[in-house]
């Protein structure tokens, strides 16, 4: 028995040291290929000119913090969810509310538009994801047609109709292979919680926004961070990020109520957008890239172009 215990302790110790040496090797491998940063490679690229982006529409109607939003594929409709327990579908051109659903819980933290445009999914503190088919028939009660599609053991913080294969948990960003269910790459360079991750349009990289007040770009094939978007004057966390269509611009919403627009290649800020009167909680570029929408704790959504 004594010898068995000794053997197990040795196994633990040897496993621990193997883990440590592998971690060291991983850092070494990544450092080997780090001889230049993205902005150095992009030095000869023409700098971007002045940007004039303004709020073109303000969507008012939620009674509390806007927590999440998504665009419909028709590039015009938007679904948003709020702490007031409501999920609203808007026509962004006219600002009309086309549908409104009252969820049985408050803090509806996630909502998404189906690619078909015929349904929305949402969830929050009720621990489940519900899908509501959208109907224009005034006699139909939308809530009656809802279907629950998933039960979770805790609150729903994000949902999407396409395979969402990235996750920010704590300071780590992990990339998962949906077929094998395995984590294939992990990045831990942020100094605080990651709030938002978004793929670069080509799929070869992704950006993250974090409570450490920085946004970072990670290249999946180089397997490392290739750019940091930060300024000494920015001290509040970035809650939400999204790329413009070509990937040249990164829009990031912050807890200091502003939206910063970054030149992805050169690493510099090209614009700072004011307008929201509280934290920006969610931000998405429209499917055709002609506008982007931001949602805030100030109860409104703004469409910018």
């Amino acid at each position, binding site marked *: 028995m004594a010898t068995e215990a000794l053997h197990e302790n040795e196994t633990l110790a040897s496993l621990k040291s193997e883990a440590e040496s*592998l971690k060291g090797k991983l850092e070494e491998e990544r450092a080997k*290929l780090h001889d230049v940063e*993205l902005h150095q490679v992009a030095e000869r690229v023409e700098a971007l000119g002045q940007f004039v982006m303004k709020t073109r529409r303000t969507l008012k109607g939620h009674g509390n913090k806007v927590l999440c939003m998504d665009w419909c594929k028709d590039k015009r409709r938007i679904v948003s969810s709020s702490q007031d327990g409501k999920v609203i579908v808007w026509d962004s051109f006219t600002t009309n509310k086309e549908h409104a659903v009252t969820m049985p819980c408050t803090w509806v933290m996630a909502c998404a538009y189906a690619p078909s445009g015929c349904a929305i999914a949402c969830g929050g503190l009720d621990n489940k994801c519900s899908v509501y088919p959208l109907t224009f028939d005034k006699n139909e009660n939308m809530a009656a047609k809802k279907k629950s599609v998933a039960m979770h053991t805790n609150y729903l913080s994000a949902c999407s109709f396409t395979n969402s294969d990235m996750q920010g948990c704590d300071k780590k960003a992990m990339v998962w292979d949906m077929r094998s269910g395995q984590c294939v*790459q992990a990045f831990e360079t942020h100094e605080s919680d990651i709030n938002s991750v978004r793929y670069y349009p080509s799929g070869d990289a992704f950006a993250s926004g974090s409570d450490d007040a920085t946004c970072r770009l990670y290249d999946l*094939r*180089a397997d*490392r961070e290739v750019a940091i978007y930060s300024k000494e004057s920015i001290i509040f966390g970035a809650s939400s990020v999204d790329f413009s269509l070509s*990937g040249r611009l990164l829009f990031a919403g912050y807890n200091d109520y502003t939206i910063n627009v970054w030149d992805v290649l050169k690493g510099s800020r090209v614009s700072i957008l004011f307008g929201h009167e509280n934290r920006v909680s969610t931000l998405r570029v429209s499917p055709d890239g002609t506008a982007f929408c931001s949602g805030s704790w100030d109860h409104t959504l703004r469409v910018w172009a």
Partner: protein
Amino acid sequence: MAGDLASASALQCLVEQLKLEAGVERIKIPQAAAELQQYCMQNACKDALLVGVPAGSNPLQEPRSCALL
């Protein structure tokens, strides 16, 4: 004893995971960066938020008329 076994197997998983991550094939940053840059350049003309759109073609940018009821 059981506790040791549990942490041993957890460590085993970690070691396997790290081996997987260490074995990933990597390309050099200059090449990766050049490809990111190339994608940007190739798609820049289609990026409305980057280059703007001809006046009148974005319904969001048109001044809206107000109807007085």
